[in-house]
């Protein structure tokens, strides 16, 4: 069963929606100018915000390393376990950095 292929397609589905919401929110929110304090005032304690970006981060952490793995497999001779381990670590890094940011603006 092609787990990576299916995981990448499934997260692409999530990201197509999440990125659109993310960009639309940015464009809408900064119309009149926005400060960091104003952003944090809206995100602190906002559960919907934290859930949305939590899902976003998880989807990115799954999607991006699989795509990067494909690119590296096609464009370099790098194959096998070492490639998979490095990209798993990259996935964990994305997950940690992303969730840290979500928690920071939520709490």
């Amino acid at each position, binding site marked *: *069963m*092609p*787990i*990576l*292929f*299916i995981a990448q*397609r499934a997260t692409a589905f999530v990201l197509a929606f999440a990125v659109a919401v993310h960009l639309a929110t940015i464009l809408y929110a900064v119309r009149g100018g926005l400060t960091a304090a104003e952003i944090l005032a809206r995100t602190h304690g906002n559960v919907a915000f934290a859930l949305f970006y939590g899902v976003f981060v998880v989807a990115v952490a799954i999607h991006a390393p699989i795509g990067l793995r*494909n690119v590296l*497999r*096609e*464009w370099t001779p790098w194959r096998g376990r070492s490639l998979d381990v490095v990209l798993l670590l990259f996935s964990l890094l994305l997950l940690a950095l992303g969730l840290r940011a979500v928690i920071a603006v939520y709490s």
Partner: protein
Amino acid sequence: MSEVLGVDVWRGAEQGAFQAFAIPRRQHQTVLDVVTEIQREHDSTLSYRFACRVGMCGSCAMVVNGRPRWTCRTRVNEVVKGGERLRLEPLRNFTVVKDLAVEMTGFFDKWKQVHGYFEPGAQPAKDFAVVPPQTKERKFADAGIECIGCGVCYSACDVVAWDEDYLGPAALNRAWTLVNDVRDRGQAARRNAVSGSDGCQACHTHMSCTRFCPKGIEPTYAIAGLKRAMFGWGAR
């Protein structure tokens, strides 16, 4: 139409050079006619491959003025305008044996890898299978079944060019016709073969195979079908 056709033909193997010939221009002459005339009248050491001359056997494919084509069904008039020259090279993504002849073993090994042959199962069927022409499976199989194995799609494919393990459009197209063969009893092994990292998921949908297939087959859609089908296999 000028009376003489300038032709540049690849001579050698991976290393080599183009050799120039001047051939009488004839109405309706095909590219294969030109190659045959060069070999018979100008240089008998020229190596190339052909058999049927009528678009059935798939053995005369070459790169003609930069594009992969079946040479027996390509008229010079289609590819050379005015005083242009004709440039003939061996198919890309194959090892060149000599001049215009390429080694196709690896290409057909990939057909075997995808189980690109009918598997009747351990016991013969008790009765004739009824496969109505209007069923979805029959239509999918029909769309790809006329492949003649010429290697044009394989030569045109970018993914094959950068990943020699990629199974390629022809083998995957053949697999798709068999995935849709309701009589076949060897689907599990075939599904495994096409689902790997070098299988259908590696296709980038550049569509060069579909653009250049001389039989008008659309391997891109066969591969897309395999990608879709994989979700169903995964759920089982």
